[in-house]
């Protein structure tokens, strides 16, 4: 029974949240969703659409024409030119777009998808759901804590390893940029190297750019491989409105690529969801048209919260070293000189899968230690791939008072117990 799902795990983030839900007075720095509510203008557009009686029926499988026209215009502002009629699909959140893309691109003889480690925790599971095999390429963490600030090189793609792992079985290389959980923004040079490596192969690049708006570098000019016309048949770019427009629960995003790829992905999208939620499509239209000011406000607030979180980490330099994130809203500190005392944690009520995951994983053990002893939820680094081990992910997308309280608790706990 359930053979297909035996190797598929619930996201560790959700596991942590589930464990936390049983403990009173817990502060979460785990969840990757922004603390803000959806902008008023977006909510009003949805209410208006609801009252107009236009949300009860399916839209076209591609999505509403008007929404796709708006998306085409937004993409053009960023130097990406895609046909709204045939090259853009509105999807039910980025993970649906990712899954549809993976199902469309993975084949029996081409079943490997290269992902970075660390990278978004759900990639590996989505690949398995699509019948593929995740192949990890490590990101290399700089030994200098200033690498991130000085050169945006806190974490670098191991290009040599990537080159070695590309084979005739490679269906795609998939990554988030800016990267979740490290917050690094991959350099244009490195992205172009990836494009070079797949040149002449049948592999695609799946570029997940849900954090593209959250960038804290001065004078940074946003770059995506989807801006390069010669690569349009090789790139499938995915964007979600969950983070940038605080619309995680609306389940709305979009993907775009050359017509040849989109017509295949569309078949899977149709089978999975028929169309993205129509009310969310109407809301997305308002967000893209009128939400820029709100996005700028979010970015400025997250910038401030990043600095607050980093200042706490600076105070905890005996316990952590970290690369200051230039993008997304996560910090991914490395745990040092902490001997977790796992015997203090009661594992009796944990299921076997969880116990298996925890065994031998310092990041899991430390995350649970913080949960049970400091009442702070963080995500164990192993959740983001093997190279994430010995790290934890902290989200500064949470409210400022939660960040301050959570970091105070961690500081107090570490000072008293280690």
């Amino acid at each position: 029974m359930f053979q297909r799902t035996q190797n598929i795990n619930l996201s560790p983030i959700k596991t942590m949240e589930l464990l936390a839900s049983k403990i009173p007075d817990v502060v979460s720095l785990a969840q990757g969703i922004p603390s803000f509510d959806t902008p008023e203008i977006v909510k009003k557009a949805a209410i208006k659409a609801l009252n107009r009686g236009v949300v009860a029926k399916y839209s076209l499988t591609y999505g509403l024409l008007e929404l796709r026209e708006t998306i085409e215009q937004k993409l053009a502002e960023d130097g990406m030119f895609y046909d709204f009629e045939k090259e853009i699909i509105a999807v039910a959140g980025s993970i649906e777009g990712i899954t549809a893309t993976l199902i469309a691109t993975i084949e029996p003889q081409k079943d490997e998808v290269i992902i970075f480690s660390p990278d978004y925790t759900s990639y590996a599971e989505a690949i398995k759901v699509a019948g593929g095999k995740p192949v990890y390429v490590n990101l290399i963490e700089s030994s200098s804590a200033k690498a991130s600030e000085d050169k945006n090189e806190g974490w670098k793609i191991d290009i040599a390893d990537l080159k070695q792992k590309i084979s005739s079985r490679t269906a795609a290389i998939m990554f988030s940029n800016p990267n979740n959980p490290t917050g690094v923004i991959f350099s244009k040079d490195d992205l172009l190297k990836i494009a070079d490596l797949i040149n002449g192969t049948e592999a695609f690049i799946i570029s997940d750019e849900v954090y593209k708006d959250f960038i804290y570098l001065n004078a940074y000019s946003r770059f995506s491989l989807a801006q390069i016309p010669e690569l349009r048949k090789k790139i499938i770019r995915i964007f979600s409105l969950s983070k940038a427009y605080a619309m995680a629960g609306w389940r709305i995003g979009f993907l775009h690529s050359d017509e040849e790829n989109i017509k295949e992905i569309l078949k899977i999208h149709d089978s999975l969801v028929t169309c993205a939620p129509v009310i969310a499509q109407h809301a997305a239209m308002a967000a893209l048209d009128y939400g820029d000011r709100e996005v700028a406000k979010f970015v400025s607030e997250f910038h401030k919260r990043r600095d607050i979180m980093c200042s706490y980490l600076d105070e905890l330099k005996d316990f952590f070293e970290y690369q200051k994130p230039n993008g997304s809203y996560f910090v991914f500190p490395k745990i040092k000189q902490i001997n977790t005392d796992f015997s203090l944690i009661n594992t009796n009520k944990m299921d076997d899968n969880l116990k298996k995951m925890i065994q031998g994983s310092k990041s899991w053990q430390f995350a649970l230690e913080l949960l049970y002893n400091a009442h702070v939820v963080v995500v164990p680094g192993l959740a983001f791939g093997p190279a994430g081990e010995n790290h934890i992910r902290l989200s500064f997308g949470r409210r400022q008072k939660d960040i301050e309280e959570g970091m105070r608790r961690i500081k107090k706990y570490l000072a008293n117990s280690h």
Partner: protein
Amino acid sequence: MVLFLKRLLQLKLKYLAKIYIWRTNPFVIVVAGTTNRHWIKECILEALKEKGISCRGNKKNFNAEIGLPLSVLGVYSETDDDSKIRRWFNVLLKSARAAFFEKATDYLVLEMAIDKPDDMEYLLGIIKPQAAVFTTITMIYPENFSNLDEIAAEYRRLIKRLPKSGMAILNADDERIISLKEYSPARVFTYGIESPDPGFMAKDITKSLAGQEFLIQTADLKTKTVKINKFGQHHIYAELVKEVIVGGIIAKS
């Protein structure tokens, strides 16, 4: 209360826009239809700017009852949220200033959006277009129009109001659009890709990674090759309209 204030605002904006038009007398080109208004408007503006002609168009979706007069006045609220009374008061102040003092522009190129019957009548109460481009008629407001012919009836109102000296530019590939031809008091220009005999025609279309290349044949059978870095048939239509505007308006101005 909010609805009353919105109506009041709408009325004030309408008259301020009319004052601006009366004072500066711009040549008004409107782009009407249910899809592809944006890129056609952008192409027309590009053609005018290339010739050094002063022009202005609407931003984003400022194309209906409130957005259109604001576009005429060149005033933009950062959102179309109608609940922030203070913000709208500021918009009203800026609009009043623009109505009396905003510098004149030679051309206004405006997208015109209707989402219910009689919207067209209201918009035509604000502007008197000299030229109108008609794009497509597709069903996008099923709650207010029972069929596509009802939407076509709205566009009929627009074409009938064009002056004899004006221009009606019709998409020959859309049957409902081309059937508006007989109601036009103005000169009619047609454009298309699929119909057998449009005045302005695109043919030999090829797509490459860099974009699209095609041949435009004008009504007087002159041809020119056009290359664009955008994808989709709607951009070819936009280039065709640009050609009509260049030949029909700019060359004579």
